[in-house]
């Protein structure tokens, strides 16, 4: 009898364990004291000993730092720059305004102006009246020192590229810099300043660095021109506490924007996603980095103060500068045939793929540039007429512009509220349209390429079964990983034996660069500025190397003379030249024709905030910037954030 009793007990225990945790959120008081201690006086304290109401807590995207004492940004072993270092301390010459799609001055006061028509000599001014966080004045000498140091120290990884770009950088006086470049340059500010995420060219304080060996220096007490200084760190590398500078007026943000709101900013790694969500539910984290849509659902239901980009569906921010899709190795048969690549495009049931990947919270893109607002206006919408008329070699018109409307209908049926109603807004949210799901046309294309269908399975031209492997990131990039599985599901339903191979980061990237893939969930499709010349550079055929060798660019090994020619022409043009947009549009058309990469969706970022302690965060209604918490422009957001009074 006892035996029976313990089995029953056990079953009940397991049931309780599993269900207890799931139904708990509702009963959770809003200000649960999680890992915090009550202060002796009034308000709540964080576990690093600062008043919670004065501390903004931000998730760290890159995880734990193995060696939290290393902050020398020129060494790979440094604490990840997005653990708060480049967001709050280090500054660069030019920053980016992603809403307008143009660069703005940061440490530099002006953009580089050419001194003659060789495009090799430039001059720019730097900001006056700024100081390093240790009080020493910031001058042009610091910029020159940093440049000289990079040119001189060959052991620094960035040095090679910097020396191929810059011949010399001289301080003419305290606020003026003159640059001489190795080659004629038309886009110096893009190459030295921030376009996406950050830049490697971070100016270091001469008065500290000149006494040290830059390859060995740890820079344990980092000093920068940004508005914060490092106050405390976790010896285990899980968190970094930053405090507002007393002389914040002399920081870049202080001078250019105003006083940062939070007195303290705590960058902290909370561990796996489950724990990060729990922390956000308990109001122990104000800004979350990437989470999955499912986690967002949970957070939204259990914390009414949690806000994502849009107030309603699709919630996510979709202006991330990279788009996801299926990348082909165009040097491997049968994927060297554009009919095969197009057949696979038409076998992709894009609406179901969207549902399976992120529950429909995705914006489609039919071209190689990401569907972010700025680029949609510059390329996607103007190209719509061309796309509609575009024909495959047999005269078939693959494009249809009904995606947005169909998605809205489909989602409405599932009972989702708050969807956009007018067609312009639908298009802005869900994209301009995509290619038809048309297995019949795909069959024609495949049969033309010599494929045969036996029963419901496809055979390769040589008669063997068509097996296809999609390389996918293991867990480090959720959208691309899920996309691979969803696309595989769609292709498999059409008789192709598809297999998804999940790979850890090193193997995944190495396979791309050595061409060790057939189809991969890679994303060689990024862009932010309307002048996306720099991002498209990699498609030049000069970078193609044989499979097995590491390619610096053009990892799809897709050779197209017209694209290569256009790219070289673009390099010589000034960014302001109106022909730039026209030529990039032409490149986009060539890419649609050749389809070396099936563009699918922009990246949907779930990067929510908790408005319980802080307010003033950017969102779709208050879009002074995008929610790029891991970018160096973070410091420019801080003046907008104000305590909520809780």
């Amino acid at each position, binding site marked *: 009898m006892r035996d029976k009793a313990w089995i029953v007990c056990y079953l009940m225990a397991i049931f309780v364990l*599993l269900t207890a945790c799931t139904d708990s959120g509702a009963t959770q008081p809003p200000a649960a004291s999680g890992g915090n201690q009550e202060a002796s006086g009034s308000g709540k304290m964080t576990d690093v000993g600062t008043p919670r109401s004065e501390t903004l807590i931000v998730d760290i995207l890159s995880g734990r730092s193995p060696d939290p004492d290393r902050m020398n940004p020129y060494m790979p072993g440094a604490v990840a720059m997005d653990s708060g270092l480049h967001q709050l301390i280090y500054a660069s010459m030019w920053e980016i305004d992603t809403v307008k799609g143009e660069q703005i001055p940061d440490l530099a006061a002006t953009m580089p102006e050419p001194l003659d028509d060789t495009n090799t000599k430039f001059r720019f001014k730097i900001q006056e009246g700024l100081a390093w966080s240790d009080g020493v004045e910031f001058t042009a000498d610091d910029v020159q020192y940093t440049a000289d140091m990079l040119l001189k120290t060959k052991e620094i990884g960035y040095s090679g590229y910097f020396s191929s770009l810059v011949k010399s950088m001289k301080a003419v006086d305290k606020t003026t810099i003159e640059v001489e470049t190795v080659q004629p340059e038309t886009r110096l500010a893009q190459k030295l300043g921030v376009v996406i995420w950050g830049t490697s060219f971070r100016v270091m304080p001469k008065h500290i660095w000149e006494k040290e060996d830059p390859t060995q220096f740890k820079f344990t007490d980092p000093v920068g021109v940004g508005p914060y200084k490092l106050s405390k760190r976790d010896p285990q590398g899980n968190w970094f506490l930053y405090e507002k500078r007393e002389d914040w007026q002399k920081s870049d943000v202080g001078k250019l924007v105003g006083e940062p709101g939070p007195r303290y900013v705590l960058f902290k790694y909370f561990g796996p996603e489950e724990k990060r969500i729990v922390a956000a539910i308990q109001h122990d984290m104000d800004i979350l980095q990437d989470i999955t849509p*499912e986690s967002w659902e949970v957070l939204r239901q259990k914390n009414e103060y949690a806000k994502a980009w849009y107030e309603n569906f699709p919630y996510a921010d979709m202006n991330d500068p990279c788009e996801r899709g299926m990348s082909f190795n165009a040097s491997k048969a049968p994927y060297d045939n554009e009919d095969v690549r197009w057949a696979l495009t038409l076998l992709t049931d894009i609406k179901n793929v969207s549902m399976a990947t992120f529950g429909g919270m995705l914006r489609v893109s039919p071209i190689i540039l990401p569907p972010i607002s700025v680029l949609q206006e510059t390329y996607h919408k103007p190209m719509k007429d061309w796309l509609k008329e575009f024909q495959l070699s047999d005269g078939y018109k693959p494009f249809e512009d009904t995606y947005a409307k169909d998605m809205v209908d489909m989602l409405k049926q599932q009972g989702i509220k708050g969807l956009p109603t007018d067609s312009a807004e639908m298009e802005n949210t869900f994209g301009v349209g995509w290619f038809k799901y048309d297995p019949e046309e795909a069959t024609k294309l495949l049969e033309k390429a010599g494929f045969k269908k036996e029963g419901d399975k496809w055979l390769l031209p040589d008669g063997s079964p068509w097996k296809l492997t999609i390389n996918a990131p293991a867990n480090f990039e959720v959208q691309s990983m899920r996309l691979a599985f969803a696309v595989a599901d769609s292709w498999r339903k059409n008789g192709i034996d598809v297999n998804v191979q999940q790979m850890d980061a090193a193997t995944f990237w190495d396979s791309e660069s050595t061409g060790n893939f057939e189809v991969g969930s890679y994303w060689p499709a990024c862009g932010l500025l309307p002048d996306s010349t720099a991002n498209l550079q990699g498609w030049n055929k000069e970078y193609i190397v044989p499979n097995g060798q590491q390619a610096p660019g053009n990892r799809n090994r897709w050779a197209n003379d017209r694209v290569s020619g256009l790219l070289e022409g673009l390099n010589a043009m000034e960014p302001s030249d109106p022909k730039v947009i026209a030529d990039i549009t032409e490149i986009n058309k060539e890419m649609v024709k050749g389809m070396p990469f099936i563009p699918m969706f922009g990246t949907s970022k779930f990067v929510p905030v908790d408005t319980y302690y802080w307010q003033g965060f950017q969102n779709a209604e208050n879009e002074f910037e995008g929610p790029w918490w891991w970018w160096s422009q973070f410091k420019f957001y801080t003046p907008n954030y104000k305590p909520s009074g809780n």
Partner: protein
Amino acid sequence: MKNWNFRLKAGVAILALFLILGMIFPFFYTGNPIEWGTYPKNLKPSADHWFGTTNLGQDTFWLLAKSLQNSFVIGLLVAFFATVIGALLGLIAGFKGGFIDRLITLMTDSFIVIPSLPILILLGTMLKGRASLLYIAVVLIVFNWPWPARQLRAMALSLRERDFINTAVFSGSGTFKIIVKEIFPFVAGWSLANFVNTILVAIGSESGLAVIGMSSNEKATLGTMIYWANQHQAMLAGRWWWIGSPVIAIALIFIALFLTMTGYQQYSALRRGK
């Protein structure tokens, strides 16, 4: 059957239930249970969907049945071969001594000292995702036989000095015969425990492999089920039927095996009249 104790009965009953669920039920399902979007998402358990549906639009019950099938196959294969290979090599080494002992010990020790994770990732990458379940089983066997081998060698060392073994040796029995007839009965209990444990280890390692991308996450196993449920935050979102079914299944299978094992020991002790 009539002398069976409660443990044996309960264990065999639960085990039979799962075997039927895993080995027979999948044949009654015409579709492909792992295909996405077959049913509406996230339905709670009902008459139509006994265990509800997943966030990927699969029926949890049929998915579980298919997963049980695959996991059973892996678990049993690994447990059987790892235990048999380990037991044979370990007993031979312990009993024979000398050069053979040294050679086998060197082999087992070398396998034991190399941590398996890097090797597993390597093998996974070389196979480029076409990892069949059989292949995964073979890899797991490779990493699971040295433990019982070492353990049983130690036991054999001790048994070798006993009188009845000496008697057997002097009476001229062959080595293999002695090992199987005289020594094995003494280590059978431990081997059985190891067998049961290895089933669990195999099912557990498979789910670990699934996470690092070496198992094929498109194949239904208990491990990949947990993997997908975790990926979609089933626990936090309160989808207990999804995350719960594979976890409870693993636990119950193990308990059933354990009950059967201990029950059988009691039963046979009773029969021997002790």
